[in-house]
C-alpha cells in the first residue's frame, strides 16, 4: 500500500524521483495518508452484492481532498493495490513495529536517541497515527474501539486465521501474546506452502532437462496450488479479512519504507546502513531491542511472497499445463506480445529466503518416499 503509493507518485505527472516520493510520503500529514487509504479501499470496488458496501458519498468526497488524491496517484478502479497478508506477516516477524514503538516513545519523552528534526517530527506524527492509533477521523482502519484495542493483536489474529501462523516473538516485554485465536483458521497452510515450494524447486532444477531423470511434476504443482488457493480463499469469503489485510499492509508498508533508505528518522538516530535489515539492527540497538536474526531474509522476500500468494489466490494456475507460470522466469517462446512475465523469479526468491528464515531445507525431502509399503493405507 505505502510502497505502491511511492511508485504511483513517481509515475504520475510531473513525476518524482524515488527518494523524493518516499520523502513526500514519510513526511506527509497523517490525515492525508488516511484519506488515501480510504481511496485505495474505494478503488477496490467490491462486486455488487458483496459486503461491505462502497464508501458513502460524504466519505468519498472527503477522501478526494487529500494530498494524494490526484489523477494517477489514486489506483484505478478494481485494483487491489495493497500487499498480501503474508507480506505484513514476514515483515512484522522482524519485530519492526515493536522497535518503532520504542523509537516513538523515546522521541516523545526525551533526547536519548537523538534530536528529531522537522522531517522526523512529521514522521513521528504519522507513525503514531498509523501504527499506534492516535486520534484520526478514519478509525475504521485501525482496531481502536474498545472491542479491539490492540492493533498488533488484531494483526496476529488475521495471520492466524489466514495462514495458521504466529509471530516469532511475544509482547514487547517478552510475555506470551494475548489475542483471539479463531477456531476457523488455515492450519495446513504452512505444510502445503512448503510442499509447493519443494515441488517448484524440483521444477526449476529441471527446466532445461530434456534427457535425464526428471523430478518435475506439473500435476502435483497444480494440485498443491489449487489446494492453497481454496484454503486461502476460504477465509476471504464475502471480502472477509480484506480490511484487516489493508490495515496491516499500511502499517508494515510504512515500517518498510522507513527502512528502505536512510530516511530522516534513520539519519537523526545515526542508524544509517546499506540495507533495511542493517538499519533495523542499528535502530534496534538504540532502543535496546534486537530484531529477528533473519530480518534480512524477511525483508528480501516480502514483496515476492505477496505477488506469489496473490497469483495463487487468483487461480492463475488453472491446470497442470499452466504450472510453468510458477517456475519459469520469462514468457515461453511463442508467447504473444505483451504477455505477462511468469513469476518464477519471485518463486525462487521465496524458496531461498523462506528456507533461510525458517531453517527448513526446501530443496531436499526430510524423509524419502517409502516404497516398501505395497498397500494403500487402511481405512480407519
Amino acid at each position, binding site marked *: 500500500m505505502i510502497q505502491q503509493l*511511492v511508485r504511483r507518485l513517481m509515475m504520475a505527472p510531473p513525476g518524482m524521483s524515488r527518494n523524493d516520493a518516499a520523502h513526500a510520503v514519510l513526511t506527509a500529514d497523517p490525515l492525508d495518508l488516511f484519506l488515501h487509504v480510504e481511496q485505495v479501499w474505494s478503488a477496490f470496488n467490491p462486486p455488487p452484492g458483496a459486503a461491505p458496501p462502497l464508501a458513502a458519498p460524504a466519505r468519498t468526497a472527503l477522501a478526494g481532498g487529500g494530498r494524494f488524491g490526484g489523477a494517477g496517484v489514486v489506483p484505478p478502479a478494481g485494483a487491489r493495490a495493497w500487499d498480501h497478508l503474508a507480506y505484513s506477516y514476514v515483515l512484522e516477524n522482524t519485530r519492526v513495529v515493536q522497535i518503532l514503538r520504542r523509537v516513538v516513545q523515546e522521541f516523545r519523552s526525551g533526547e536519548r536517541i537523538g534530536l528529531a528534526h522537522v522531517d522526523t517530527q512529521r514522521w513521528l506524527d504519522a507513525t503514531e497515527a498509523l501504527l499506534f492509533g492516535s486520534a484520526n477521523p478514519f478509525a475504521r482502519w485501525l482496531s481502536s474501539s474498545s472491542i479491539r484495542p490492540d492493533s498488533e493483536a488484531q494483526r496476529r489474529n488475521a495471520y492466524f486465521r489466514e495462514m495458521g501462523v504466529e509471530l516469532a516473538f511475544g509482547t514487547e516485554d517478552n510475555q506470551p501474546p494475548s489475542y483471539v485465536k479463531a477456531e476457523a483458521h488455515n492450519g495446513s497452510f504452512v505444510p502445503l506452502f512448503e510442499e509447493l515450494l519443494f515441488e517448484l524447486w524440483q521444477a526449476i532444477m529441471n527446466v532445461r532437462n530434456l534427457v535425464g531423470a526428471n523430478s518435475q511434476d506439473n500435476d502435483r504443482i497444480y494440485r498443491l496450488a489449487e489446494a492453497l488457493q481454496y484454503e486461502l480463499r476460504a477465509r476471504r469469503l464475502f471480502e472477509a479479512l480484506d480490511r484487516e489485510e489493508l490495515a496491516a499492509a499500511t502499517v508494515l508498508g510504512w515500517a518498510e519504507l522507513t527502512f528502505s533508505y536512510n530516511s530522516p528518522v534513520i539519519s537523526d538516530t545515526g542508524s544509517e546502513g546499506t540495507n*533495511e535489515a542493517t538499519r533495523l539492527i542499528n535502530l534496534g540497538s538504540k532502543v535496546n531491542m534486537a530484531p529477528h536474526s533473519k530480518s534480512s531474509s524477511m525483508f528480501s522476500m516480502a514483496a515476492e511472497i505477496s*505477488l506469489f500468494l496473490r497469483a495463487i489466490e487468483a487461480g492463475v494456475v488453472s491446470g497442470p499445463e*499452466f504450472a510453468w507460470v510458477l517456475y519459469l522466469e520469462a514468457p515461453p*517462446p511463442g508467447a504473444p506480445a505483451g504477455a*505477462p512475465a511468469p513469476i518464477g523469479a519471485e518463486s525462487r526468491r521465496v524458496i531461498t529466503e523462506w528456507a533461510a528464515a525458517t531453517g527448513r531445507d526446501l530443496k531436499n525431502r526430510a524423509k524419502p518416499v517409502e516404497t516398501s509399503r505395497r498397500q494403500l493405507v487402511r481405512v480407519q
Partner: protein
Amino acid sequence: MANTTSASRSRTAAASRSNIASLERTVEALQRTVLLIAEANAVPNLLANGFEEISMKLEPLRNLSPAVAPMRPPAARILLQLRRDLDRPDWSLDGDRELREQLLHEQY
C-alpha cells in the same frame, strides 16, 4: 683407519643431500614446463579436435526447453493486473542516489 671411514661417510652423505636437492629442483622445473606446455596447447588442442565446431552446433540447444501451453487470456490479464497493482520502487543500490553520492565522495 676409523677417521678415514668417518670422513668418507660424511662426504657420501653430503653428496647424497646435494643430489636430492638437485633432483628436487629438476622435478620442479619439469612440473613448471609441463604446466606451461599444457596451458600453451590447451586452446590449439581443443581446436584441433573440432571442439569449436561441436560447440557451435550445440549452441541452439541452450534455448531448447519443453513446449508449454500459453496462458489463457483471462489468466494473463489477471497476472498483468496483479503486477500492475503491486508495482513498487526498486530499492536495490543500482542507480541509487546515495550510491552515486558515495562514489563521487570516494572519487575525490
